[in-house]
């Protein structure tokens, strides 16, 4: 094991253990006004009138007329309003905020406000939508010829559900106006995203806005774009009130009205000749919800991943994101990839079954190798370790023999199955995003006493970046970790190193810090202040990516994974026991083994939840019905007691010490492993996730007929 991989105590361990870490809800309440949002109760309507009762002294209402800048939240396309315009577009769209010194009174004001709506016909399912937010198409090879020459053509459809991030700490934000400036702090992943959004909403120079990240209780993508919206609302309210304003969501509000994973529907048409896949024609549709937020980028990643880890020489991929009058969907660990990885893995499995082959054997014939072209005609520049990783997982759980055993017809009350997902996660922003948009900067400040401060905008939301960044700098400078300072980012002090998303922070910004450390070491002068700055530079080997044609390297490198899940279904109750979940994960050199294993285990379980129990139901108006932990169920410690995670190391030369992106990987392909296992146990086909206990019962009912 590399020295850098040896686990250390997390840098933020002590305050989190002892309860002294300050999350946004923990700040003193004195002098801070409470804000509460009034949400649309209609999926689509014109706002005719908002009747506001007489307000007690010290209370105020803030809406679209109070926005000094633009009523647009800066995300990608800036269509999300800060407060509703003339219409509301989904149940939960914020119309206004009531603000005042006593929380109960603020809620009372919200309850008294009467909104007169003129209802308009909503679109509640993407299949019925005729508003296409984004429409992409790309391909390679000769798809027409491949289908003409095929021995057999397969066509199947796949659906995936909405998933809630369910971070334990709800969203929250505090805005404090002072000295002609606005300081906003709260639970967030991307300080500079929030910074840009607040400056635009307030209509002020960027220098008049300061964003500070508080200790953040989990994000998983849910605190990537959404905090920009909440920060704008709170900042506009504080601006009007001339006093600090805080909004802390309660759980139901958070679950019902904040962004989730995009539901998807995809159609796969696959040509097979001589027992091999020769072409795929893929049509993918994502439900964007009412505003675009991060949907274009989510959809791009989704369609780039739609042919999975397989070498498909003739490919056509069409992707659309549709507007519906539902809560906007946005970033969630995996960022569009889990949907298409589920589809392509199931498709390959189903073709294998039809050909009378073992699923894994068939999949293995198609796995890409180093030097092969990617879906977007880029190149897999580095070795693809999947074959070795498959052997590691097979050894850990006896996958191949169980596959044979469980594929035989089963009888009796308890029936078993095992499935395997093969997958990757492209590390960093899609395409030329790092080079053209993010342009990351990171700094080191060496103080006269010899301590060194890391100045970077990346946030620790539990994934461990405080620890890994600190270790990199400590290793290069030969400093003990307690001589290195890395505070929660404050945009007054840190440069824009880009957002904490896309499994990019360690690989991209970590490498900048490593280079800065080497530079500082070479130029170290005792007793002086020194500042070293490093800028992102795209590696030379990259095949330039063109987003118009989806051609080139979508990602510089890939993290790889093999996941197997073994289940036992109780045919009397439909309930499933997960007997084991086994994963081998290659994220390059682990910068801290405990940190990386923590990411793999947490992501794996979140993926199993997505595959099995996590689903969101809505009523006829699109209102989310299960908006609490009582009825939106996430895994507990009892659900997957036997989860085994192994690390395989294929170093990436342009990442620090060979590290690649880690945060999202584990989740991405877990659903296919689970669904394949359920199919095997029940002798049926599942083309959707989650595969719930109800689905198991339904398939048993059908089997009896």
């Amino acid at each position: 094991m590399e020295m850098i991989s040896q686990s250390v105590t997390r840098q933020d361990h002590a305050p989190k253990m002892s309860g002294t870490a300050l999350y946004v809800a923990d700040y003193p309440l004195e002098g801070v006004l409470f804000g509460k949002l009034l949400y649309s109760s209609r999926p689509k309507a014109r706002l005719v009138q908002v009747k506001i009762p007489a307000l007690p002294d010290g209370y105020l209402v803030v809406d679209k007329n109070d926005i000094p800048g633009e009523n647009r939240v800066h995300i990608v396309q800036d269509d999300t309003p800060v407060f509703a315009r003339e219409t509301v577009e989904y149940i939960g769209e914020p119309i206004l905020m009531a603000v005042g010194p006593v929380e109960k009174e603020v809620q009372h004001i919200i309850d008294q406000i009467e909104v007169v709506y003129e209802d308009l016909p909503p679109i509640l399912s993407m299949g019925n939508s005729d508003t296409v937010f984004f429409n992409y198409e790309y391909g390679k090879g000769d798809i027409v010829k491949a289908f003409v020459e095929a021995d057999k053509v397969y066509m199947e459809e796949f659906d995936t559900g909405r998933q809630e991030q369910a971070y334990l700490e709800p969203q929250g934000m505090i805005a404090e106006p002072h000295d002609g400036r606005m300081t906003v702090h709260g639970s967030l992943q991307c300080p500079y995203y929030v910074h840009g959004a607040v400056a635009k909403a307030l209509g002020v120079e960027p220098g008049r806005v300061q964003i500070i990240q508080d200790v953040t209780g989990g994000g998983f993508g849910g605190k990537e774009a959404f905090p920009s919206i909440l920060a704008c609302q709170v900042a506009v309210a504080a601006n009007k009130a001339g006093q600090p304003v805080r909004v802390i969501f309660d759980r139901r509000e958070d679950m019902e009205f904040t962004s989730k994973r995009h539901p998807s529907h995809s159609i796969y048409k696959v040509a097979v000749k001589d027992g091999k896949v020769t072409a795929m024609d893929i049509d993918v549709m994502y439900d964007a919800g009412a505003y675009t937020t991060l949907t274009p980028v989510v959809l791009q990643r989704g369609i780039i991943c739609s042919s999975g880890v397989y070498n498909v020489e003739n490919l056509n991929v069409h992707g659309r994101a549709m507007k519906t009058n539902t809560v906007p969907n946005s970033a969630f660990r995996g960022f569009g990839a889990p949907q298409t990885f589920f589809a392509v893995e199931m498709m390959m499995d189903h073709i294998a079954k039809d050909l009378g082959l073992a699923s894994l054997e068939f999949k293995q014939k198609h796995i890409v190798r180093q030097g092969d072209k990617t879906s977007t005609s880029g190149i897999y520049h580095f070795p693809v370790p999947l074959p070795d990783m498959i052997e590691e997982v097979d050894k850990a759980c006896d996958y191949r023999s169980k596959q044979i055993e469980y594929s035989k017809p089963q009888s009796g009350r308890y029936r078993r199955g095992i499935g395997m997902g093969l997958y990757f996660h492209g590390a960093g922003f899609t395409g030329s995003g790092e080079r053209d948009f993010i342009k990351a900067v990171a700094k080191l400040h060496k103080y006269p006493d010899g301590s060194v401060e890391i100045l970077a905008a990346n946030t620790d939301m539990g994934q461990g970046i405080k620890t890994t960044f600190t270790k990199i700098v400590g290793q290069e400078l030969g400093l003990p970790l307690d001589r290195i300072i890395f505070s929660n980012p404050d945009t007054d002090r840190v440069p824009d190193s880009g957002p904490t998303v896309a499994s990019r922070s360690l690989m991209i910004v970590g490498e900048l810090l490593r280079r800065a450390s080497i530079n500082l070491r070479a130029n170290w002068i005792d007793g002086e202040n020194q500042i070293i700055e490093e800028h992102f530079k795209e590696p030379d080997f990259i095949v330039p990516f063109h987003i118009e044609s989806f051609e080139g390297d979508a990602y510089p490198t890939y993290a790889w994974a093999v996941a197997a899940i073994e289940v036992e279904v109780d045919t009397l109750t439909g309930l499933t026991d997960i007997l084991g979940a086994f994963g081998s994960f290659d994220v390059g050199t682990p910068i801290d083994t405990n940190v990386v294993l923590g990411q793999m285990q947490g992501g794996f379980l979140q993926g199993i939840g997505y595959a099995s129990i996590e689903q969101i139901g809505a009523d006829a108006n699109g209102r989310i019905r299960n908006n609490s932990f009582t009825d939106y169920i996430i895994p507990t410690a009892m659900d997957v007691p036997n989860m085994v995670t192994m690390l395989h190391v294929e170093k990436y030369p342009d990442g620090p010490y060979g590290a690649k992106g880690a945060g999202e990987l584990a989740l991405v392909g877990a659903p296919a492993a689970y669904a394949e296992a359920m199919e095997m146990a029940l002798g049926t086909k599942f083309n959707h996730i989650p595969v719930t206990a109800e689905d198991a019962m339904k398939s048993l009912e059908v089997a009896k007929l």
Partner: protein
Amino acid sequence: MKFILNGTEVTYTGALNASLLDVLRDEYRLTGVKCGCKEGECGACSVIMDDRLVNSCMIAMGQAADSTIISIEGYRDTDRYAVLDRAYASVGAAQCGFCIPGMILASECILAKTPHPSEEQIREGISGNLCRCTGYNAIVTAVSIAAKEGEGLW
């Protein structure tokens, strides 16, 4: 009404239907007690009440009369905490940290009842405390390490 809070007797004069969670956070400023759902589902607000782990959001102040309440702020000065602290650190079990104060008190209740718990007993003991970050493996390992390292303390 009076109750013992982290070893000190306190007199509470507010509403008896207020939740223990709100009172601990807002009046006694014990912000290590986290609010994750207010519905008794997530366990982030766990405290120990008369030797039992409870969701403080589900306890009305009236029920807390004459009880003994221990939150993370009272527990963190104990020798048992020190053992759990080292065990959690050794496996990196605290990620975002929001569930951790509740998780630590759940760990204490497991070990107080069963000083040498099986893995299944540990998993059952923390099953009322949701964690979205870790997949639970590291937390389960940490509790079993604490059981060994803290031999005789529980």
